[in-house]
């Protein structure tokens, strides 16, 4: 049954991707990319990767669609027609696709217990999570503790991306903008329902943040959800009001302090006599030390992701509004 559903989903995925490439209307392409992300999130969920599915749904279908739309606000809606037909890239893509299809013939079957992915490190992770970290969600233990270096790197990638966008587009300032952004303040129904939903979205974001040790979730997903709540507020009340509530300085502070919090957890571990990002020494009991470490670094991840996503969003919106100087 789930195979039929998977095949159906994959056909839909290919169709949406083709439609997104073919359409000359950029707005339609953005919407199709959102649908694509949602479909691939369902696919991840069918493969039992709930954490990845949650990230893909929140970031891919939610935030990146909003970012694309805010970028589209100062662009033409239609793609310019190309004079040349690019046959060489098409050939390269087709050859690469055929090679990958050929390689997948030799892949072990899905869920095969003797496959290298399932017999090499996975048993060690499953066993160690129980004894060393003692939290139910193995994914969080791997991301936060066993592979903490990778996640630290990811946080700094997000942080660098945020700084890069702010350098290119300028941080938004409320003064000097040509237009006043009132959002949907004059549209009663969206405004009322949106205001009713925002607290619940924030609450759900915090739940995903602090429940990441027990269920799917963690800092990345929570950051995206909290950013989504603030973006909804911005759409309803306008950018001026949103920047009054959460000024750019605070958002930049979120970006910096999250990355710093993560790195300093590692340094505290070194000062207490362990190695970098070794949480065992954070508490007298190694297991609770691991749990403290994971909670702290997840909070750092959440802060950085929220700050970066909102800074990028505000920068795009401010640019779309134009500037007097």
């Amino acid at each position, binding site marked *: 049954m789930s195979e039929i559903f998977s095949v159906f989903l994959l056909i839909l995925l290919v169709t949406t991707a083709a439609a997104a490439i073919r359409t000359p209307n950029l707005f339609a392409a953005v919407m199709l990319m959102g649908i694509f992300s949602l479909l691939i999130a369902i696919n991840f969920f069918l493969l039992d990767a709930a954490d990845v599915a949650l990230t893909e749904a929140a970031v891919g279908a939610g935030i990146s669609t909003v970012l694309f739309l805010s970028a589209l606000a100062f662009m033409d809606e239609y793609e310019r027609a190309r004079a040349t037909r690019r046959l060489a890239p098409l050939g390269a893509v087709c050859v690469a696709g055929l090679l990958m299809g050929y390689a997948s013939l030799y892949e072990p079957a899905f869920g095969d217990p003797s496959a290298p992915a399932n017999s090499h490190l996975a048993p060690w992770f499953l066993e160690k999570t129980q004894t060393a970290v003692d939290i139910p969600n193995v994914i969080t233990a791997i991301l936060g503790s066993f592979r903490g270096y990778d996640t630290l790197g990811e946080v700094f990638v997000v942080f660098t991306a945020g700084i890069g966008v702010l350098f290119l587009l300028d941080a938004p300032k409320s003064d000097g903008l040509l237009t006043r952004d009132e959002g*949907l303040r004059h549209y009663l129904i*969206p405004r009322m*329902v949106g205001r009713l*939903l925002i607290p619940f979205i924030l609450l759900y974001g915090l739940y995903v943040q602090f429940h990441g040790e027990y269920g799917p979730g963690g800092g990345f997903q929570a950051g995206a959800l909290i950013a989504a709540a603030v973006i909804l507020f911005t759409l309803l009340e306008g950018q001026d009001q949103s920047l009054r509530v959460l000024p750019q300085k605070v958002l930049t502070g979120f970006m910096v302090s999250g990355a710093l919090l993560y790195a300093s957890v590692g340094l505290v571990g070194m000062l207490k006599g362990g190695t970098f990002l070794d949480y065992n020494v954070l508490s007298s009991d190694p297991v609770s030390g691991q749990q403290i470490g994971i909670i702290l670094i997840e909070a750092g991840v959440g802060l950085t992701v929220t700050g970066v996503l909102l800074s990028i969003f505000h920068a795009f919106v401010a640019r779309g509004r134009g500037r007097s100087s």
Partner: protein
Amino acid sequence: MFDIAVQVISWVLMLSGSVFVVIGGIGALRMPDLYTRMHAASITDSLAPILIIGGLLLQSGFTLFSVKLVSILIFLLMSGPTASNALASAAMLSGYKTPEEERES
């Protein structure tokens, strides 16, 4: 006996909800202009989730799942019509004209 009755009612609810989703999909493709298409498509986010989640609620009984299902239903019932409202008013403000209005003017 009671179990069988609950199962039958739940499947009837879920299947009829699915039928409404299909009807909404057909309507969104076949209707002549934006407003009538939205009218058809809005079945999929108002009536269909009530039926489908109602069926799923009968399957789950009184558990944590049913609380989650009810909160999803409340979210859908609030956000769906609001999104339709926002879409329709955005279409009207941007000067969208139905084919009929185009012919008249």
